């Protein structure tokens, strides 16, 4: 158990360091069109790799945080059955299998990813605020929650950049209005997540981060299958 705490302590530091590098690189490198001078051109494969790495880390942190929470509160297992009714993202239609995900159009899949990421930005922020006020938790959990909320925010930006790149390359159509949909989703889901308990929140986010990771990987292997598919 002490090992887990230690791991939990080391994790945010490492992840933070990695994320600092990752996030800055993702944001600092503007997408260039027509090979403009002074622009750091990234290929679509590279963008996908970065985003997938990001989502993997996000899922890892969410998993750790959920495990810590579970250990702290020792919830009964039957909560799993009850959780599905409480997730505010249940309304978002997501493919529940590999084949379904592969059959789905690229644009739809991309939209699903973006919807998920948008839906979790505010709840995680509030979750972190709630943890910070609770002195019961150690600082590592509080830091992790902060990282998680930041990660979701950065990952959404990254995925939006990938979408722009894909639209530029003509891989997907311009039907995705990345700016408009988040606000729409946010308005519809604004009330539900406030009723969720912390633990349920973590459970739901853990599930959704895994969905995002999977979808991104499938998308990448469908569009740019080289380099590790």
């Amino acid at each position, binding site marked *: *158990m*002490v090992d887990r*705490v230690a791991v939990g302590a080391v994790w945010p530091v490492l992840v933070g360091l990695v994320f600092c590098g990752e996030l800055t690189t993702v944001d600092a490198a503007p997408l260039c069109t027509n090979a403009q001078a002074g622009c750091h051109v990234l290929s679509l494969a590279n963008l996908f790799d970065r985003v*997938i790495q990001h989502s*993997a880390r996000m*899922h*890892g942190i969410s*998993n750790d945080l*959920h*495990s810590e929470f*579970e*250990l*702290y*509160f*020792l*919830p*009964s*297992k*039957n*909560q*799993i*059955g009850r*959780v*599905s*009714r409480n997730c505010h993202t249940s309304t978002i239609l*997501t493919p*529940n*299998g*590999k*084949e379904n995900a*592969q059959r789905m159009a690229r644009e739809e899949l991309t939209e699903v990813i973006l919807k998920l990421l948008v839906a979790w930005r505010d709840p995680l922020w509030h979750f972190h605020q709630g943890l910070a006020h609770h*002195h*019961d938790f*150690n600082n590592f959990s509080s830091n992790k929650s902060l990282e998680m909320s930041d990660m979701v925010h950065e990952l959404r930006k990254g995925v939006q950049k990938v979408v722009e790149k894909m639209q530029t390359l003509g891989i997907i159509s311009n039907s995705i209005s990345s700016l408009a949909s988040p606000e729409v989703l946010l308005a519809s889901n604004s009330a539900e997540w406030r009723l969720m308990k912390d633990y349920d929140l973590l*459970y739901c986010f853990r*599930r*959704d981060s*895994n*969905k995002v*990771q*999977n979808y991104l*990987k*499938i998308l*990448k*292997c469908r569009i740019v299958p080289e380099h590790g*598919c």
Partner: protein
Amino acid sequence: MQRTDVSTVPHLHLNGVRQSIIMAVSSPSSNLLLLLLISSLDWLSTPGSAFLIDWDHMTSSAPLEPHFTECISRDQETFRCWWSPGTFHNLSSPGALRVFYLKKESPTSEWKECPEYIHSNRECFFDVNHTSVWIPYCMQLRGQNNVTYFNEDDCFTVENIVRPDPPVSLNWTLLNISPSGLSYDVMVNWEPPPSADVGAGWMRIEYEIQYRERNSTNWEALEIQPHTQQTIFGLHIGKEYEVHIRCRMQAFVKFGEFSDSVFIQVTEIPTKESTIPLTLVLVFGILGILILIMLIVVSQQHRLMMVLLPPVPAPKIKGIDSELLKKGKLDELNFILTGGGMGGLPTYAPDFYQDEPWVEFIEVDADDGDSGGKEDNRGSDTQRLLGLPHPVSHRMNMGCSNAISFPDDDSGRASCYDADLPEQDTLMLMATLLPGQPEDEEASLDVEERASERSERSLVPTQTGGPQTWVNTDFYAQVSNVMPSGGVVLSPGQQLRIQESTSATEDEPHKGKEGEDGDETEELKQKELQFQLLVVDPEGNGYTTESNVRQISTPPSSPAPGEGYQTIHPQPVETKPAATAEDNQSPYILPDSPQSQFFAPVADYTVVQELDSHHSLLLNPPPRQSPPPCLPQHPLKAPMPVGYITPDLLGNLSP
């Protein structure tokens, strides 16, 4: 239901603990307590599945109802569930229990029966069409009469029950061996399980390698990493290792099964040979160097010998081929020495050589004679001694003569006197000490002298000018008498006889020819017994010349042959012109002619008997004898060399 009771017992218990923990958490110092409690409850399973609860551990005495043992998905696309009837053996028959599942996709979802039964394993298989990820499933067992065995803990989502198949094609390659030859590194590589769709990105797998020694029980686990190869460091040579691998989904907890073990063993590689050639190379190198040094020493032997052991000066005689000095060539040598080639060398008495090996260091100047060869026969010993202008061609040179250029330098000059400017008295001494000429020469000279001009002879006694060069002196002189005062009477040898003749035939014209000569003859007559004494210093510090002319007592007319010695008492004699030592010295003691009887029988050599108190030599009386017998021209017979003695002939010399 019992099942629910059983199931709820831990639930309530856990809830109670949870309540207490929540209360405990509120206090600031609760973290430690929390940690302790959590460590004690580590056995709790991961969320999403109740299968991992150890039913046996929990309920040891209570009856066990039918339950699901495990649900596993291998590829995140399908999954299987296994159940057990528990202690209800009457329900163990196939079909007695039925599986129902609830897929919570919507609030209105219903329980459905297992799509595919495998009764042999008591397994329910959910294929792809019935599998949905990220959607909670709840499993239920129903018996006859709608008896339901349900545990809320048996709800899960598919991604949480994924246990990938073990990796395949586990293989290893040797990376390197440490320089010490004791340990090595191994690279292990494998393939992801074929059931896991890693290529589509649907599953992201990370692997864990474990290894152990063959006979140990503890496995060493390496770091979990997502790549399909890993290096094992620090394996020991000679030991056998067992390696296996398992994998799991990234960011998930449940590992799959272990693969089959692979055995690694590297036997010892002989590396000793690297040191053996090194020693051999060193040994051969040293031997080669030694042989090279030996060769150099042998080839340059002469030079080295010259450097290390400089040659000892060998005896040399100018004008004589050194080849003749070698053994077996004495005939030629003596021929040369006795006047064959270059005028020869004066021979000496054989007995002289025995004592004085240094006689060999004789330089013979055979070439340049500043005098004509004609006067050779004319000059007497005295002339030679005095260095008069009629020097003998074959004159003896002292070893250290600087007037003679001797080609060979290592001829024993070290033992000679300083040749810078020999003092005249020394020269005089040396001249007087020279032995007399052989009798035959004396005789011949005597004859010639009589026939020669007197002017020559007149010059003989004069010693005012001193010897021109002391070079023209004989090496030895004959001591005829010793004065009691310590002076030695030397016989002038041939000159003495000449004087006798001149004195005998003194004529007025002889006298009148040269005033000086006449005076001299006058003096001669007057000073019958005036001798120029040369004191021989017995200590050998050199020769001192006594300037005083002393008289010597007239020796008895006929020395008794039996007498051992004669004592000669010097008589004071007024000194004549020979006041100064050097100038007016006459190297010879000129006896009066009437006293010739004393000198007739004078032998060339005499034996020094002893020294008296005045440091004068006491000599044996010269034996009465006819003029010394004519020494054979070539006294050297086979056993008796005259000119030169070789060491092997030394033994043949008769004393």
